[in-house]
């Protein structure tokens, strides 16, 4: 999976978690929680969706890497590079 494909996956997950929000203007380098109404349960939804869809396990200590779109894609790239 390329970084672009990983970003598309994250956007798809976010659409499900924040169905009332317009994601078109999302800035990749700004924390997601500053742009969207996301609480800790929503963040766990991102982690759970990645686990369910791709069996990607994200340790709790690594959640900090999911702050922005850029940091999320960068963190997931090596974990998802062999997935299609």
């Amino acid at each position, binding site marked *: 999976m390329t970084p672009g494909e990983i970003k598309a996956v994250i956007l798809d997950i976010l659409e*499900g978690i*924040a*169905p*009332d929000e317009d994601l078109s203007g999302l800035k990749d380098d700004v924390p997601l929680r500053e742009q969207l109404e996301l609480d800790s*349960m929503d963040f766990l*939804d991102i982690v*759970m969706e990645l686990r*369910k869809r791709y069996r990607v396990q994200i340790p709790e200590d690594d959640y900090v890497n999911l702050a922005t779109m850029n940091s999320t894609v960068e963190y997931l790239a090596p974990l998802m590079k062999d997935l299609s």
Partner: protein
Amino acid sequence: MIAGLPERDRIVITGVGLTAPNGDDLGAFRDSLLAGRSGVTPYEIRYVGQTVAGVCHFDELRYQKKKDLRRGTRAGSVGIYCASEAIRDAGLDWENVDRSMVGIYIGVTEHGNVETENEIHELKGFDYDTKFWSHHHNPRTVANNPAGEISLSLGITGPHYTIGAACAAGNAGIIQGAQMLRLGECDVALAGGVSESIHTFGIFASFKSQGALATHDDPHRASRPFDVDRNGIVVAEGGCLYVLERMDDARRRGAKIYGEIAGYAINSDASDFVLPNPERQAQCMQLALKRAGLNADDVDIVSTHATGTASGDTQECLALRSVFGESRNTRFNNAKSFIGHAMGAAGALELAGNLPSFADGVCHATINVDQLDPDCALNGLVVNQPREEKRVDVILNNSFGMLGINSVLIVKRV
């Protein structure tokens, strides 16, 4: 003794919010009851397959966002809709209401089955590996969930909890609200009951195994209390919450008053898990009448609990005869024949269906009676067509549940 209380201890209904399978507000619900319009439709649920149910069609997005719906439960959503509608109907100046003095008291038959079944169904796809079990499970299944979602949605910081009382829960929620107002625990009570039960296959499967799940080629005719060919319960979802206030508060703000909580009682059969006990039911009605300072003959309408099971209907009729046998004025009806059994919401919804009688003087019917069971042939049973009365002053609302819980609520015209 409730009769003769001072004004600050008299509790009145000043707002109604509801969703039923045949109407999403009091006017529409009442119109359906007078028109003989059923809300029972074909319904399919996992594992059980095709059946019938009372399904609600209220606008979920009127008071919630899509995200709220995703996060919460159907029972929470029903509750938020009903609470918001009731507050609006009551004409409360909500922005200036002290929300720390609003109490939320929600009757439920059960809660958590829907969410647990959904999670287990999902988990099956992951070979029951619990690391795929949702972190939403606990907040969705805690017993106070339906009341808590109302608190979160409306910013109410007073007490909130549910009252688990099987199918007596709707009345129990209202009674709890009235008691808390009298105790001064709140100034406004949002009280009644909700049900999301059509979304759990377990309730259908269990009634089916018990031989108590209704079947009929025509869903509209499946719920038929008192008919010789009745064959069980139609499960329904729904909700009905009231704004309750003390009489002096309601009068001070010039509120519209639907009626006064004149008397109530809750007791227990202590005799069987599922079979009703007419002696205890009769005692419950008698106690409510005594507290209201009324005789049986003072009651104009009895909203029966009858669910369409052979045992339940006939046993309730035994109890009714023992209490109202000498009464010449009392009429009997049944709302489940229109919408099915809305479980935790049933008692509250069935009362609501009768409240407009104070204004229009009409007693709605029990429908789907082709051949009346002789054991259920009560004098005063209003069969298939509504009946115009000269005047309706007192309604007695029966609601009974498994494990032998009986609740009776009496509301009178103000």
